[in-house]
């Protein structure tokens, strides 16, 4: 076993143990900074101890034990400002086993849950929730977080520091809330994870490879949440939705890093393994007949995933699902998406009638003008289409979006010349 491989396997084990370990340390120290620093210290010790003495039977238990001792020593040192502390006690094999057995209990769930709830504290703006979860739960470095969000390191650092200060001021939730409040917090955690995924997914072309880890991290957190709430249909829907969307990652960009639309994607490059798991979760959630917005969005992604070719897509079913989503979560954007499905199932005229009432509310939304332009072009109203598409170009947020609209404008031009 060489050092490089050893280090890689330790990294995986430490990352897997992290939510449980930091959660347990947070319960013990009741302070995010101390819990995090103690865990870092334990990780450093793991890097030197494990290759020498062999991996412990339960890495999480080992890390919690060592981190707790390190944290206590650190607190003692800060208080007394005395010389260097005694060597941190490394648990003997039998105490470690006993500790591992204790950790198997209900505390495991509650610790992770408390950690997730803390990061999604209602006092925190959502961007701070995401940054904090990435730092504390996932263990991403400030540099990695800054790069993923395309912000400076100091800005990322500030987001995390502010989040921690706010939480300290508001008081940590050490008692887990009752069933109703708990369900609300789960919804907040699910929403945070979905936003995190979208941060990675909606990236403009050139930076996609840097942002894919955000998608993967979001999936990991969704699976974690699902293990805590195996019967929560919306958490099943969330996990399914992320898996089904992420399955298309390899087909979403062409060689020039431009966005490839769903109907033009090479479906052979979709990840069948992720699709299989995603479809199963959608089906599993559907058994309960308790529809929620995330499940419906996952069901829409499932219809696309089931179509081997774009022309096999069941647009009628997608239209019905968007109609259901409109009743669960009314929004002009959902109506706009429904209109696209309507145009596929019933033609552009009906779709145009559906989006015209949205003009006021979506006047500054890129996609509204893009869809409107495409519908007008299909109806042969080239001049009106050009006006809408030009408006869309002005509002495009990324070069890839603008390039996509430009293609449609070029097509209009060619149609006129031919």
């Amino acid at each position, binding site marked *: 076993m060489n050092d490089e491989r050893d280090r890689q396997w330790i990294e995986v084990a430490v990352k897997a143990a992290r939510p449980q370990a930091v959660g347990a340390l947070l319960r013990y120290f009741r302070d995010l900074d101390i819990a995090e620093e103690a865990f870092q210290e334990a990780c450093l010790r793991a890097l030197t101890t494990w290759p020498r003495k062999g991996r412990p039977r339960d890495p999480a238990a080992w890390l919690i034990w060592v981190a707790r001792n390190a944290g206590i020593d650190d607190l003692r040192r800060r208080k007394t400002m005395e010389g260097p502390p005694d060597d941190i006690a490394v648990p003997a094999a039998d105490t470690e086993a006993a500790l591992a057995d204790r950790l198997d209990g209900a505390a495991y769930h509650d610790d992770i849950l408390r950690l997730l709830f803390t990061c999604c504290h209602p006092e925190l703006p959502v961007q701070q929730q995401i940054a904090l979860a990435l730092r504390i739960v996932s263990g991403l470095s400030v540099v990695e977080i800054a790069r993923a969000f395309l912000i400076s390191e100091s800005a990322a650092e500030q987001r995390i520091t502010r989040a921690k200060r706010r939480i300290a001021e508001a008081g940590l939730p050490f008692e887990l809330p009752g069933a109703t409040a708990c369900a609300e917090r789960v919804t907040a955690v699910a929403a945070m994870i979905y936003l995190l995924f979208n941060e990675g997914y909606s990236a403009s072309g050139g930076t996609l490879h840097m942002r894919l880890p955000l998608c993967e991290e979001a999936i990991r957190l969704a699976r974690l949440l699902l*293990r805590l709430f195996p019967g929560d249909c919306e958490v099943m829907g969330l996990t399914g939705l992320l898996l089904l969307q992420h399955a298309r990652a390899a087909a979403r960009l062409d060689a020039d890093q431009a966005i490839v639309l769903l109907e033009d994607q090479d479906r052979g490059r979709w990840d069948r393994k992720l699709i299989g798991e995603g479809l199963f979760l959608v089906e599993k959630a559907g058994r309960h007949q308790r529809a929620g917005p995330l499940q419906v969005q996952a069901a829409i992604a499932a219809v696309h995933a089931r179509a081997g070719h774009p022309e096999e897509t069941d647009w009628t079913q997608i239209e019905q699902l968007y109609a259901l989503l409109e009743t669960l979560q009314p929004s002009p954007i959902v109506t706009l998406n429904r209109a696209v499905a309507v145009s596929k199932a019933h033609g552009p005229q009906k779709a145009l009638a559906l989006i015209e009432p949205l003009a006021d509310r979506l006047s500054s939304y890129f996609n509204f003008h893009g869809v409107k332009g495409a519908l007008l072009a299909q109806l042969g109203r080239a001049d009106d289409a050009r006006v809408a598409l030009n408006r869309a170009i002005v509002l495009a947020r990324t070069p890839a979006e603008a390039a996509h609209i430009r293609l449609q404008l070029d097509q209009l031009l060619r149609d006129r010349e031919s």
Partner: protein
Amino acid sequence: MRYALLCYDSDDIVGGWTTRQEEEVFAKHEAVEKELADQGRLGPNLSLMPTSAAITVRSSGEPIVMDGPFAETKEQLLGFWIIDCASLEEAIETARRFASHKQTGAIEIRPVALRDQARA
């Protein structure tokens, strides 16, 4: 004698593998599988989706359907191989080879009690 080699590991750890780590493990597994298959000793073998996809049907008068895995454990059943071995030593040796491809988890050897009547 027919044996089931049951592969256990943590969903968290296996889910956290890099693509390279995953390919490395599977490539080594495949080499052993090919050898067993060439000797006519490899039966059904498969890997399972993570336990977040599990559903449990529990017997209790009228069976109850529950979301989630059968048991909350640190290590979960990830997949299995059915193999033919001349002796227990041979089964242990095969399990040892599969186990050496990764750094965590365990392989449980369970002799098969009753053969699938359709296949026997």
